[in-house]
């Protein structure tokens, strides 16, 4: 990297972590996240995602390697590095007996904000996250979704350049999840780099431009979302057909799976075009009523990359794919 280039939002080099019990959570990972990115860090349970985040945030001591945030090494320039980071952890970690406003304002104080300024920012983010009406409520009485939003407001109060979200929408209903996506996209658009870990692969695919997949302490993929998904060799389309189809229905050149009289699944190779599928259907005077992907594309790629796909049990699948046709 030349000196004229702006520093990466996050630069991890040779990061290793071995816990006291001998378990090696990270085996020397390298990771680079550019400033302004919306980056996904995915992996099955126990892959090393939370350990990586823990090291970045100084909650977990590393065994070897280096981590720098916007050019600030977390060992040698820890105060500057920490000022750049806002973190939304996986588990609720605020004082359950404290009022919402106090939690956010106090966090601002930890980052050196004068109380007056912290109050202004707390109001700004609590309003943006629709929590201002709850500012005087004791935090333990909030709903799960509100608690998640409170942690986001708290992480943003010092206006970090890098926001790290560890499964921010876990247990949040779909409507609220979508509104949180919108909010996070706005935060990213305003210049904040975001690193997201999630079990909702649809979430990562919708929000993130670049992605790293971590498995058993190693980075097994680190590329753009577009490139990663482009490597999918096959995908399964589900077609609703207007006309009735017999159980032995076949389509020349395609592998079809009959679901019911008006629904089939079709396996499409990367070399094949959807147009040719439509042409084949039209040759049999069949009209397509609707079309959708059977499984989330990222989910298929994710499973195909894992060393031990049985560990994917912690992943939430919005659309379940059948084993016989999955990539």
């Amino acid at each position, binding site marked *: 990297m030349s000196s004229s280039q702006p520093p990466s939002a996050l630069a991890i080099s040779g990061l290793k972590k071995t816990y006291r019990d001998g378990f090696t959570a990270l085996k020397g990972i390298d990771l680079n996240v550019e400033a302004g990115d919306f980056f996904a860090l995915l992996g099955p349970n126990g892959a090393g995602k939370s350990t990586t985040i823990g090291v970045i945030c100084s*909650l977990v001591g590393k065994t070897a390697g280096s981590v720098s945030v916007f050019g600030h090494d977390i060992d040698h320039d820890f105060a500057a590095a*920490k000022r750049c980071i806002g*973190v939304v*952890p996986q588990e609720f970690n*605020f*004082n359950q007996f404290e009022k919402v406003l106090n939690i956010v304002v106090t*966090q601002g104080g*930890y*980052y050196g904000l004068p109380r007056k300024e912290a109050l202004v920012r707390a109001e700004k983010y609590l309003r943006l996250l629709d929590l201002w009406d709850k500012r005087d409520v004791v935090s333990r009485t909030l709903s799960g979704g509100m608690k998640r939003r409170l942690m986001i407001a*708290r992480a943003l109060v010092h206006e970090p350049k890098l926001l790290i979200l560890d499964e921010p929408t876990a247990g949040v209903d779909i409507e609220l999840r979508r509104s949180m996506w919108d909010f996070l996209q706005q935060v990213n658009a305003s210049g904040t780099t975001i690193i997201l870990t999630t079990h909702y692969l649809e979430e990562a695919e919708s929000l993130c431009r670049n992605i790293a997949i971590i498995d058993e302490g190693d980075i097994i993929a680190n590329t753009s979302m577009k490139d990663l998904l482009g490597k999918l060799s096959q995908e399964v389309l589900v077609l609703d057909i207007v006309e009735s189809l017999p159980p032995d229905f076949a389509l020349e050149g395609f592998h079809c799976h009959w679901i019911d009289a008006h629904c089939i699944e079709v396996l499409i190779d990367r070399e094949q075009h959807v147009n040719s599928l439509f042409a084949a259907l039209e040759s049999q005077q069949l009209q397509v009523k609707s079309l959708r992907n059977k499984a989330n594309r990222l989910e298929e790629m994710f499973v195909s990359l894992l060393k031990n796909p049985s560990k994917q049990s912690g992943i939430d699948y919005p659309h379940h794919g059948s084993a016989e046709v999955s990539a």
Partner: protein
Amino acid sequence: MQTLVPPAITIALYFLIFGQLIGSRIGEMGGFDYMQFVAPGLIMMAVIQNSYANVVSSFFGTKFQRNIEELLVAPVLEATILIGYIVGGMARGLGVGVIVTVLALFFTDLSVNNWFITISMVLLTSMVFSLAGFINAIFAESFDDISIIPTFVLTPMIYLGGVFYSINLLPSFWANLSLANPILYMVNGFRYGILGVSDINIWQAYGMLAVFVILGFSVSLYLMAKAEKLRT
């Protein structure tokens, strides 16, 4: 309110029972009537118990709820976090100490023999037990772990630390054994500040407190540096 009033009531009962009812039959001790003799010990007992209790409960609560992570991810020095908790523990210990002193004045006359020794003894003792509470909280993994030390270690040491009697009354073996109890030095140092009498050399008390303060800060900072110890 809930942290200042209950210990004040407890100590008031000590004054009433040990000082007023039983103490009136004991007579003089160390050249003072028993109520005067026991008052500095009871003040110190309240300071020790409350300094310890404040830090061990507040820091363990912070650790238990994981909101200690709010501080650990922020650009706050570990020494700053430690000092914050220690000052909080001292504030509560000294607050209760002041209340108990005012209560003591309802039962007996107290005049201060040496203000510097009195104040420095209570400040250093409060600091030592705040640090001890902090270390206990770091190691604690359950609520049981924060009550074991106060119940099975601290209370016996306080009761056998010259709060209620002079070790000169003990047979030589037990008197010598009592010298191994650091609380004896703190209680007697404080008593010397108020009454001008002590079972031990006052400089030994200062030396012991200095060692405990330095050791307490060093161990606490070392344990904090190992951040994983703070995660439940």
